[in-house]
């Protein structure tokens, strides 16, 4: 079985300050991990993904995430928040299920508010 826990449903930061969105996962197999972003009334867009290469992954718009196997975490960070970062962020785990297909599980999401 696999699961994703996003530890904060809402995060509020001031523009120009760092962003930290927390994610813990559980998976029976070696997982791939993703962060997707969803702006209001827009589709889901991939920010970055980890697939067993470098543990520090860089994504679009200055975001990065670090895979920590010992802590089963994949937290998303950005050094300096921009107003355009206000959106909902989803942590996603993907692993091969016993039937040989990709099983993809979404977290419940973290809504990021950026205060001017």
């Amino acid at each position, binding site marked *: 079985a696999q699961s994703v826990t*996003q530890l904060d449903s809402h995060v509020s930061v001031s523009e120009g300050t760092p962003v930290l969105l927390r994610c813990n996962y559980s998976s029976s197999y070696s997982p*791939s991990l*993703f962060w997707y972003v969803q702006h209001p009334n*827009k*589709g*889901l*867009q*991939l920010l970055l*993904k980890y*697939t*067993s290469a470098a543990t520090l992954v860089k994504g679009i718009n200055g975001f990065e995430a670090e895979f920590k196997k010992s802590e089963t975490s994949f937290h998303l960070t950005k050094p300096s928040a921009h107003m355009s970062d206000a959106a909902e962020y*989803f942590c996603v785990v*993907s*692993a*091969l*299920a016993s*039937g040989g*297909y*990709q*099983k*993809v*599980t*979404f*977290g*419940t*999401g973290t809504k990021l508010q950026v205060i001017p």
Partner: protein
Amino acid sequence: EAGVAQSPRYKIIEKRQSVAFWCNPISGHATLYWYQQILGQGPKLLIQFQNNGVVDDSQLPKDRFSAERLKGVDSTLKIQPAKLEDSAVYLCASSLSGTGGEKLFFGSGTQLSVL
């Protein structure tokens, strides 16, 4: 390249009515997913197709929901009869081969309101 196409964009129906959603995935993508996203929650997988076969429908309420993937390309998701709690955004996504570690490409979704 063309993205995942979904229609309609919005649908309003009364409870106990039926409704259907359509999805056209990216050309060549073997795996197609239907997700339900209730307001304030993360997307929940309803059904996953590998080509035209179902690989996961464990969370599909089969007494009212059905889905098919025609010739391994287009897909339709139907609800009959609809309940108030079916109000949600229905997202279609596709990926190239479904073998793990792949990016999912999402459509814009269909927003369903059941009154």
